[in-house]
Every structure is written in C-alpha cells, then in structure tokens.
C-alpha cells in the first residue's frame, strides 16, 4: 500500500484542525472499506490519513418518537442492518444497509462514510433521502446541519469544506400511515453495486397519497429526488394511472449514463419499472 502518515486524533477539534491543516492531502478514515481500496488501487493518494475512531461521542444510535433516529458517524452498516428500531421504523434504510457489500464489509463500513464517499450508486443514500435525513457537520467555524439531498455536488463530491467532518445523521420519525421500500437493482444478488436504486417513503390517508418522497440512486451524478414523480401522486388517490404517471415522470427526470453495469436506456426503463414497484411495495408496508 502506498505510504501515508497516520493520525488518530482524540477530539473533534483536533481532527478538524488536522483536516484543515492538511487540506486535499488528507483523507478521513472511519471503516476504511472504501478508502483503503482506493489507496490500494491508486485512485486516491492521501499523504495523511486521519482516523476518527478514537473521537468520543460518534458511536451512538438513538431513536425517540419526537426526534426520530440519530446516529453518529461511526455507526456501521451492520449496526443499522440489525437495529430493531431501524428495521421497524426505517425498513428501506435497513434493506439498503443489508445489501451493501458483505457482512465483513458491513462490520467496518460506516453509513456516514457511505454518505461522504458520495458515490452516485451508494446504497444507503436513496432511502436516507426518501426519509428526509439531515447530516450534522462540524468544522473550524463551528457546526451546521444540512439536508442530505443538498449534500452532494457530483460523483465523489460534497459540500464539505476543508476541515469539516460529518458527525451525525438525523432522520425524522415516520408519520402515522407511512410505508417505505428500497429496491436495489443489480446483476447479481450479493457483493454488487446498484445499477439502479429506488427508495420510496409514502404516507397515505385512506386511499390518498398524503405525502411521498422518491429518491433514485445510480441514475444521475448524485442521488436525486424524483420530484416530478412525487408531484404526480401527492394529494391524489393512489390509482394505477397516477402511479404510472409518477413512474413516467421519474424516467424523465433521471439522468443516467451508460457504463459496465448497464446502458443509460436500460437504466431509464428500469427507473420506470422500479418506481412503480417500490410505490406498490411501500403502500403494502404502510403501518
């Protein structure tokens, strides 16, 4: 592995100072399941690796009915996948975590790391965006909170400034009458990157869609909200024609590319199929 200097700061302030000082030469190490691969495959050349695992206060996972779910930057995909409260209240997120890499990877990989890596196909991002998640950021100028859907600026790129660190993810509690679903579409069942990812969080009132959030992965430079698709349903009866209109709108608003996992045309078709399917499944999951 290419050489680097290793730092394991014991406080947020120390970590942010190191990140600010070393700027583009520094990479944050949490689980390491992306960073170490990128170093080994010469996709990234940090001279300084800042391990944040010694920083206290970043490992908690908490839920209450008013604040919702809050989990620290060190919470792993495996903890999310096996957390009873996540399985109950955020099943889309639990499903996405369960489909990320292998169990060995998930015991190390953090959800905050999946966020900060900002891969367009990252599994946990569509359900977190559909759930209305926000990230808490700590930096030299203090703290700020930003909606997750505003966090990404391009493949691998985020709004994080030098010296800033994501410390916590906050996800609002589900409204009564909400169902959620995440579909990862890939070429095989396990150890796969998504060809298309679709997450839906649907709140119904009788047969009417009171609110809906649809998020798409791997079909644009960043994960995106499918707002035109949502508009086809919000406030309307959940009729087959309305669901079909939502699926069509989602096909129109995604911006897929062709790569080894699928062509742009195929991805767009699958967005239509999977958005309709995820809406139906979310409706079946309403509780």
């Amino acid at each position, binding site marked *: 592995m290419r050489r680097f200097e290793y730092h394991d700061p014991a406080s947020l302030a120390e970590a942010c100072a190191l990140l600010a000082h070393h700027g583009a030469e520094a990479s944050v190490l949490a689980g390491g*399941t992306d960073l*170490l691969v990128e170093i080994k495959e010469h996709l990234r050349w940090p001279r300084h690796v800042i391990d944040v*695992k010694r920083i206290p206060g970043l490992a908690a996972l908490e839920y209450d009915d008013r604040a919702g779910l809050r989990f620290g930057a060190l919470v792993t995909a*495996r903890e999310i996948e096996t957390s009873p409260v996540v399985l109950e209240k955020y099943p889309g997120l639990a499903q996405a975590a369960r489909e990320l890499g292998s169990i*060995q990877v998930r015991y190390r990989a953090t959800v905050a790391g999946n966020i900060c890596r900002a891969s367009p196909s990252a599994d946990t991002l569509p359900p977190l965006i559909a759930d209305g998640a926000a990230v808490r950021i700590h930096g030299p100028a203090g703290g700020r909170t930003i909606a997750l859907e505003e966090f990404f600026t391009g493949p691998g790129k985020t709004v994080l400034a030098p010296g800033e660190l994501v410390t916590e993810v906050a996800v609002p509690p589900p409204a009564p009458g909400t169902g959620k679903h995440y579909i990862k579409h890939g070429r095989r069942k396990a150890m796969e990157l998504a060809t298309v990812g679709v997450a839906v969080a649907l709140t119904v009132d009788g047969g009417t869609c009171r609110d809906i959030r649809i998020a798409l992965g791997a079909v644009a430079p960043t994960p995106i909200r499918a707002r035109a698709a949502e508009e086809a349903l919000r406030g309307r009866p959940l009729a087959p024609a309305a669901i079909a209109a939502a699926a069509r709108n989602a096909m129109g608003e995604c911006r897929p590319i062709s790569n080894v996992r699928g062509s742009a045309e195929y991805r767009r078709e699958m967005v239509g199929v999977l958005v309709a399917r995820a809406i139906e499944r979310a409706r079946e999951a309403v509780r």
Partner: protein
Amino acid sequence: MKRLVEVTINGERHALALEPYRSLLDVLRNEVGLTGTKKGCDVGDCGACTVLLDGKPVNSCLVLGVEVGGCEIVTIEGLQRAPDRLHPLQESFMQHGAAQCGFCTPGLIMMASALLAENPQPTEDEIRFGIAGNICRCTGYTKVVTAIQAAAKGMAEGGK
C-alpha cells in the same frame, strides 16, 4: 513513522512496531507468521482474509495494523479448541469435502464461526447470505453449506 501496537492474537499478547500503511492481513502473515489467513483480492471482495476482530468477522486486508491496538484477533490458527482438537467447523469441512483447492477455506470457516456464534441454527438461506462475502471458485458452495449445517447440528447436539 512506525507505531507501537499492542494486540492479542489467538490469545497471545503481541507488541508490534508497525508502519501505518500495512494492512492487518500483511501484519498477520509477514510480521506474526500466521499464514493461515489468505491474501486473495486484497480489496475486500473475496473474503479469504476473514478474521475475527473483537469477535466480529472482518476482511483483514481492509483494516490497518495500527487500527487494532488493544483489540483481540482470532485467526484460523486460533480457532481450534486445543492443539489436538479441531473446531467442529474444521472437522465438518474435512468430513464433507468442503474444500477443493482450499484457498478460501480459512476465510469461510472464520466467517461461518461468526455466523454460528450469532445464529447457532441458521437456515440454508441464512448460511448463503452469511457467506456471500466469501468467494470459492472450486466447489459451487453446496458442500460448504452442508458442512456448516452439519457443524451447527453437531455443536447443538454436543453442547460444545
């Protein structure tokens, strides 16, 4: 700059001076001489390097040696219960012919041991889900699954 790392490996305390860019896998194989843990892909895809880190299965190629200070690591060499007594999974893999070339076997057995610790009587689907990160290109997994099922049964009956 090297860092001093104190770590327990297979029940034995080690004090190691490590360069930060050495993976735990390389440390185990080259510094400690435990070559039972295999280096396959070296990027977390194949699972051949699976070890238990504080009881949890991880790819040792994706952990830095300097990250494991104060931790407890178990490798395939530390799984057997006594020098002359193999772990039931090791016995079962031999009995059921679950190894062909054998390169993936240590990783599979370590992963299976973690799986059975969490879920002593897994279904076939749970076993296949559990070993999804362990690639075997010889066996097609059928005998691996059979061996894990048989070991689970034996461990439950034997109360071992």
